[in-house]
């Protein structure tokens, strides 16, 4: 009970990941979908850091990989917000269901 191991962290990461997928599926707001993506990336990042910790910490490859994930997530968020602003400028809403101009 009081011994916190790898599995504890993996369970939390799994649940966060799945909740992120749920948010990505159910939200109509483009920014809401972005929030779901951030949750998924955080779930994956917990996995990386937890495996690094419980694999002995003789190297820190997992932590460096998670640093790259964080940087990519920040870059992705900046671009996605710019895309949302363009979307809003063109369609006057951020409801992703309205972005069907190219649909046949």
């Amino acid at each position: 009970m009081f011994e916190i191991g790898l599995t504890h962290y993996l369970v939390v990461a799994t649940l966060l990941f799945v909740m992120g997928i749920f948010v990505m599926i159910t939200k109509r707001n483009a920014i809401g979908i972005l929030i779901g993506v951030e949750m998924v990336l955080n779930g994956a990042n917990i996995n990386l850091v937890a495996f690094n910790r419980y694999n002995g910490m003789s190297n820190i490859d997992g932590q460096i990989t998670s640093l790259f994930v964080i940087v990519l997530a920040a870059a992705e968020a900046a671009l996605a917000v710019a895309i949302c602003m363009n979307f809003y400028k063109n369609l006057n809403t951020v409801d992703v269901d309205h972005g069907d101009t190219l649909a046949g």
Partner: protein
Amino acid sequence: MKLLTLAAPIIVVMLVAIAPAFAVDTDLTLSEQGIQRSADGGLLEALMFYVCAAVVLGSGLAICLSKNIVRMAVYLFGTLASVALMYFLLLANFIGVIQLIVYAGGTLILLIFGVMLTSKSPWAKFDVKRNELIAAGVVCALFACLLLFVVVNAEWPLETDAVVVGSSMTQFGVGLLTNYLVPFEAMSVLLLVVMIGAAYMARQE
């Protein structure tokens, strides 16, 4: 409910503030209070882990259930800050700090600005059909069951009992300038490209 919404970020910030005290990597004696951490990781670590896990999953669930985009962003702060707390518990000090600065400080503000710039009223709601919610819930629950089954039953071939060295900061700096130099430089080019691209896309004609 409103009080809870207001209090949650404050509680998270307080937890983050006291986290390093619990993330001490060996069984040090906290001489001021005379508290001895037990050698097996101890009750405090377990307590901190369960508090973090509760905040992560609770605010994650709140994001799933909330219809208001601004509330969702506030709950996301709870998730991100307690994930940072988990990094401290996992002895990843640098990653925890970066998580707080980049995610909780930068990305979240960007998201909130995005919300404000892209709706006439920041409280605008987008309704989702009930059957869509149910379908998504069933799919995600099944997926969660599958993943949890795998995670709990798997045998990970870990190098146990390795010595935990003190701070990982030195290893981090050396790693970034030796083994990971190429990805590090590629990342800096990528950030430049993203900066130009985002500024170009968000410009006003």
